[in-house]
């Protein structure tokens, strides 16, 4: 492979990893809380990102991404844990209820106007991951002396992963609501844990692969807690009888 090919493939793959994280958050939040506010948040995130890139240009490499990761990660893990907990309780109590529901029945989702929770989650996911992609483009492109190709690789990754996410939208909305809330809570908690610690200066032993390990751990723990909750519900029902 030529030097140009290496730059293109490397920026494509590195950007694809970040784009997957971005699309997973937007897809999960949209399917759980509704699409309008989620898309608004994502568009606002892209708009601010475009302004930052236009203003800073290659000076982006100087942006302190660590503190930003720490703040966004902390907010995500705090919010993600709320959905994680609610998801466990709901799956334990109702099983896989709400299959194919279009509207989400949740007490804190406004029936009209902007759902700021969905907006902020999508906005933060797009802004942070978009900034990381921009940093990959700038740092790798400048180092290889191929900034243009680096931009093409990253843009291609965003288009491909975005298209895959859009294609999966129909499947995701068919997932039972209670299970979807648990899955999205697990995702937000895992990403939040990863980013917050990375932002605090902790080195993850296997880098981005540790997100998968976190997903597995939180997923297994959720399954265990669902079992315990079901036992508790069963015992309470026996006591009532």
């Amino acid at each position: 492979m030529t030097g140009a090919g290496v730059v293109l493939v490397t920026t494509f793959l590195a950007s694809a990893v970040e784009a997957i994280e971005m699309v997973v958050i937007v897809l999960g939040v949209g399917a759980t809380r509704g699409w309008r506010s989620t898309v608004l948040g994502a568009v606002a995130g892209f708009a601010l990102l475009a302004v930052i890139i236009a203003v800073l240009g290659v000076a982006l490499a100087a942006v302190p991404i660590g503190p930003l990761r720490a703040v966004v990660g902390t907010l995500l893990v705090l919010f993600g844990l709320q959905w994680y907990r609610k998801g466990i309780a709901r799956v334990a109590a109702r099983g896989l209820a709400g299959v194919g529901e279009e509207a989400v029945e949740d007490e804190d989702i406004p029936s009209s106007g902007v759902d700021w929770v969905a907006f902020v989650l999508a906005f933060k996911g797009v802004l942070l991951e978009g900034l990381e992609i921009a940093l990959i483009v700038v740092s790798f492109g400048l180092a290889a002396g191929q900034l243009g190709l680096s931009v093409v690789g990253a843009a291609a990754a965003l288009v491909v992963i975005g298209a895959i996410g859009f294609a999966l939208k129909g499947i995701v909305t068919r997932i039972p609501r209670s299970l979807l809330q648990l899955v999205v809570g697990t995702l937000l908690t895992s990403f939040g844990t990863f980013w917050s610690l990375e932002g605090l200066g902790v080195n993850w032993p296997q880098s981005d692969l540790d997100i998968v390990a976190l997903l597995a751990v939180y997923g297994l723990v959720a399954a265990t807690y669902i079992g315990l909750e079901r036992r508790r519900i069963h015992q309470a029902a026996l006591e009532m009888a």
Partner: protein
Amino acid sequence: MRAISSGVVGVARFLYRFVVGDDWTVAVAMVLALAATGILAADHVSAVWLVPLVAIAMTGVSLRRAARRRRAA
């Protein structure tokens, strides 16, 4: 003036719901765990396990507390 104050109250209420939610003890424990991890990281001690451990433990505590509340009601 009234519009500004109600706007501020609305933003504060949203932030509280977003960050703290329905169990403030989980949020406090997580912030403490993150702070401790940050302090340890500054001392070159990698405590990658602390935040997930506290998250898992506090989820269990919170679920148990909610179950007790349901039973009492």
